[in-house]
Structures are given as C-alpha cells and as structure tokens.
C-alpha cells in the first residue's frame, strides 16, 4: 500500500473539512473495498478520513407513516439507516426485520461474517460497485441518499459503474426509504468473489409503484429493467415474469458467464425474488 495520511473524524462536518483540506483524500468507512484496492496499489489517496468514530452516522430509525394527520399507519414506514451502520447491524436489527425483512436478508448475504462486521451501507453506496447489492435495493426502493450537503434521489445518484452523483467533498450521512408493500431480492453470487453475478431487487411501494433494479449483470452498473417492471406492474407473479423477454444486450460477458447466461439469471432471480 502506498503511503497515506490517516485522520480520524469525530463528526461528519469534521470529516468534510478534512476532506476539503486534503490533496486527494478519501473517506474511509468500513474499508472493505477501499483497503483491498489500496493494497493492490490501484488506489493511492493522499489522505484517509476515518468515520468509524462518528457515532452520529450509525444506527437505524423507523418512523411510522402519518395517515389523516395524526393516526400512525402500519406499512410504508420511513426507514433511515446511518451511513456507518454495518451490514451485520442491518442484518440483525430486530425492528427493521419487522418492517422490511428483505433489506436485512440482503445485508446478511453481503460478503462474509467478518466483512459484514466492518463493511457499511454508506461505503457500499459511495463505492457503487457494479456487483454490489445495496445499489439495487436503493434504486428499487426509490431511496434517498443523504449527504452532508443535500439529499439525492437514488434515480439521480447511481451514474454507472463506480460512478455516483457525489461531488469530491461530499459525504454520505444516511440513506432513507419507505418500507415497501412487498419486496424481494434474488441474488446469484459469482462463484469466486461471491459478489452478485445477477442480483434483482423487486419492490412494490405502498402506493403501488413497481420498480425492478438489476445489479451485477449490466455492463455499466445497476439499472432498472423496464420490461420486468411493466410485467410486474400488470401482474405481480412469476408467471408474468416468465413471459418477459430479457435481452442480453448491454449485459456483461466474462469468464464466469456470457451475456445470455446473465440474461437468464436476471429472469430466474426475478422469479426467486418474488417467492
């Protein structure tokens, strides 16, 4: 690993200031992608700003939906997950699992137990690995990415593989989304890396909007699949998925499988996400 200057931030503001001051600094969240990248000498940030002590960025809050002004309704809760919340914390949150079990299940299958103890949702979303799981969830759930400067809709945030709407000095503080009426995630792990080779997140909001987001398979990162969305909007069932023609165009081919195989996986994983 190349030399770097380490800083421990105490607050998000502190981190933003340190980041602004640095030459070519990077935020260190859980580091489960950044550190290996640095070890392979593929990244050489001048400074690392460690958020691990910023407790304000950690934790999950669930707010019930207001109905008729004062009544609190079941379903459609607003879920806010602090950027430094680890995958294992999301996976094991007793309240979250009641309102949005799919996000717990997704988090519980990222990496391995040791990675989940350290890796964070903010880090994953900031990195936007084209085979990561969270981007598919956030896109399908119509989530909002909160930063120290603004709020960004997921639809505007993910800009192709490893690319996001974040500016150089911007730090993710949290993500929030509405608990879906129904949702599921089907993940086919790459046999070697265990990242998604095709991961499909299907979600129907309490308002009835259907979104289907695909990770791992596209040749430019996470994207929404219009054909599957149309089919599931009309009929939320595996049978309707079966009738969709999933094209191999724009899908990735590599030593683990060609685009045709990934197209098949998208369909199969969509069906399994519904199960």
């Amino acid at each position, binding site marked *: *690993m*190349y*030399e*770097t*200057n*380490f800083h*421990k931030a105490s607050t998000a503001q502190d981190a933003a200031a340190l980041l602004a001051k640095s030459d070519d600094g990077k935020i*260190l969240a859980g*580091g*489960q992608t950044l*550190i*290996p990248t*640095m*070890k*392979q000498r593929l990244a050489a940030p001048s400074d*690392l700003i*460690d958020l*691990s002590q910023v407790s304000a960025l950690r934790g999950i809050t669930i707010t019930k939906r207001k109905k008729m002004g004062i009544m609190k309704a079941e379903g459609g809760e607003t879920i806010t997950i602090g950027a430094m919340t680890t995958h*294992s914390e999301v996976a*094991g949150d007793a309240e979250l699992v009641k309102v949005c079990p799919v996000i717990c299940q997704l988090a519980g299958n990222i*990496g*391995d*137990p*040791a*990675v989940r*103890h*350290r890796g964070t949702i903010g880090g994953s979303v900031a990195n936007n690995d084209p085979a990561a799981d969270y981007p598919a969830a956030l896109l399908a759930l119509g989530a909002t990415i909160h930063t120290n400067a603004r709020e960004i809709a997921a639809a505007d945030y993910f800009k192709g593989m490893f690319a996001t709407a974040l500016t150089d000095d911007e730090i993710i503080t949290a993500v929030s989304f509405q608990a879906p009426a129904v949702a599921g995630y089907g993940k086919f792990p790459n046999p070697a*890396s*265990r990242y998604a080779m095709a991961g499909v997140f299907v979600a129907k909001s309490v308002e009835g909007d259907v979104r289907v987001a695909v990770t791992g398979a596209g040749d430019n990162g996470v994207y929404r699949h219009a054909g599957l969305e149309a089919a599931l909007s009309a009929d939320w069932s595996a049978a309707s998925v079966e009738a969709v023609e999933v094209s191999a165009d724009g899908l990735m081919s590599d030593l683990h499988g060609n685009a045709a195989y990934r197209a098949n996986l998208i369909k199969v994983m969509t069906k399994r996400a519904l199960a």
Partner: protein
Amino acid sequence: MKIAMTVNGKSVSRDVTDNTLLVEYIRDHLRLTGTHVGCDTSQCGACVVHVDGQAMKSCTMLAASAEGAAITTVEGLAKSKDDLHPMQVAFKENHGLQCGFCTPGMIMTATDMVTRYQSQGKELTEDAIRHELEGNICRCTGYHNIVKSIADGASKMTTV
C-alpha cells in the same frame, strides 16, 4: 503515528506508519505471528481476529482504525498459557487442520459464529456452519473435519 490498543488483554503501543494494516501491526510489530496472510483480496480469512468482540479481517483494516480497540488473536483465545479454548481442543480432536495455516483464522471465525448464534438463540446447523465459513478458505481438509470441529466446539462453548 503512535497507535495504542489492547491485544489479548495487554495494553500495547507502537509507532507505525499511517498505512500500516492491523495484521502488520500484529505480526510485524507485536510479533504475534499466529495471524496469517493468505490472500490480497480479503477472501481467505487466515487473518481473522476479534476486534471488540467481533470477527474481522485484520488484513482489511488499518491499525490506526483499531486505535483504542480490544483485539483478540488466536494466541489470546485460551484463558491462560496452559489452557486451550474448547474450540482449539475441538479442532485437534476432530482433525480439523492439516497444514495449520488457515487454522487460526478458522478458529477465530468459529468462536465468533458460535458466540453470535448462542446469543441470538439460533441453532448452529451444519448448513449454517458451512455458510458462516464463506470468508475462510482451507486448501487441505475439504472442510469436512472443520465443520465437525466447529459443531463439536460449539457444543462445549457456553457464551450465554
């Protein structure tokens, strides 16, 4: 920079460069060489230690990030020098190791999973053990006896 933490119950402090990995701090600076490095991509798990009670990959963490943390390595797992942790005993009794290189990481991962399952009241089935070992690679044993060792060790560990 000076980095202080507690390792195996002892307060330690070393002057290291900012880019020092936790595993380098443990191996090169503290000379606790039971924690190993078997890959560059955070997958093999030979480097797993406990950081504040949770299994983590010490090759994928800076020493500086562990400032002030309580670290347990395989050398500090047993209650005393003359004692063995039940999981260590289980690995020996079930022939859960051959070349021994992945073993420290396996044992640290194993004790972590048993602690978690027991605290959550979940049953640690064979399938669960195999799934929990996703981040630990062994090339010698074919995992059969590692899985057996962990099940046996779990039955002898009481953490709650």
